[in-house]
């Protein structure tokens, strides 16, 4: 697939659009027993970063978040902070994965950094800001989930990125 850092051709643009659509679809699917439900949204974010890099991947994240709120309505209300979180997440994935060979340490570092920066720090702060929640209370509420999910995400991401590498489209 041809995707440059700054310039993007029509095919790249249309591919980005379909990846955004795929991201929105994946966001709606979750798997696992009901005690540890893991959403698939992170796969869409990682793929945007992996294939389109920080700039266009970030733009894709922006569009995906805006459209998701337009189609499904955001749970808990629309807030631009969460859009920023989505963009930062994709940029972090892109920083570790874009045009790089897939290695365990890259997947681990990217996932842990996204969990720490986006899910733990940024999103907690937005919730604190949006609902006037006490910061300690907000942390306590999220920390349990954020201690479990990254490890599942790492395995899923590694397995899936390796599977995706085998797909080659020629016309």
């Amino acid at each position, binding site marked *: 697939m041809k995707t440059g850092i700054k310039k993007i051709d029509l095919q790249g643009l*249309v591919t980005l659009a379909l990846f955004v*659509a795929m991201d929105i679809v994946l966001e709606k699917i979750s798997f696992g027993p009901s005690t*540890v439900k893991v959403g698939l949204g992170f796969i869409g974010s990682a793929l945007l970063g992996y294939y389109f890099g920080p700039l266009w991947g970030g733009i894709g994240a922006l569009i995906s978040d805006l459209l998701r709120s337009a*189609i*499904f309505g955001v749970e808990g209300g*629309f807030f631009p902070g969460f859009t920023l979180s989505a963009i930062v997440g994709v940029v972090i994935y892109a920083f570790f994965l874009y045009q790089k060979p897939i290695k365990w340490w890259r997947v681990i570092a990217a996932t842990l950094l996204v969990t720490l920066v986006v899910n733990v720090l940024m999103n907690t702060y937005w919730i604190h800001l949006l609902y006037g929640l006490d910061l300690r209370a907000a942390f306590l509420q999220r920390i349990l989930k954020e201690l479990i999910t990254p490890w599942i995400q790492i395995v899923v991401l590694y397995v899936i990125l390796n*599977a995706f590498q085998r797909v080659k*489209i020629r016309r």
Partner: protein
Amino acid sequence: MSKIIIGRYIPGNSIIYKMDPRGKIIATFLFIVIIFLANNWLSYLFLSFFTLLAVGATKLKPKVFWDGVKPLIWLILFTSVLQLFFTTGGKVYWHWGIFNISEYGIQNSIFIFIRFVMIILISTVLTLTTTSLEIADGMEWLLRPLRYLKVPVAQIALVMSIALRFVPTLLDQAVRIMNAQRARGADFNSGGLIKRIHAIIPILIPLFISSLTIAIDLATAMEARGYREGAKRTRYRVLRWSKYDWVNLGYFALLTLILLLTRTY
């Protein structure tokens, strides 16, 4: 999977339906900004009153709004209860270790509950009364000033409309792929974690391949119909500002004023 509904739009013809999506998006934004102004009982009372008035103006059944709040009700209650235990100040009613229930704690947890519900209600009003295509057009219009910062707004608009068009298609595709794999014995709802991770791949890879094929075909079709990058183009779908939008913005300006007057400084 089949429970996923695309677009929460419910047709109707009350005044809110006649408003421009841009006005409604701006109003929703404004609401989230002004909700920070409320900090005492009187301001929260006015805030709730204005929100419920907006909800009432949609003339939709209360049940559809309850459906918007329902999936989050445990989160909201849990959050309020946590807030109850962690806020200190005022008269202390109960104390145990790090937990305590105080006058301010009770007040704060009620405020947070109201805030949660009001924000959800106002966003629900937006998504219930506006089609997703209208919201996307409105968002595109609101992003336009960003082109002075060299943000490729025209390309973003194109990506937005293509993505919006293909979300239902890809959802259908995902369901069809899952059914096709089930027909060959795939099982998505049982087994341990690792087994389930491996079960995702036979869904994701075909979805990925069909996205890529659609993209190649669509790009070719667009070029065949004379799409050129950066060429000057006209607009077929145009948004129109109506008198109802002034009513809408006036309503929120009034609420802002009331909140500024009633809040404690």
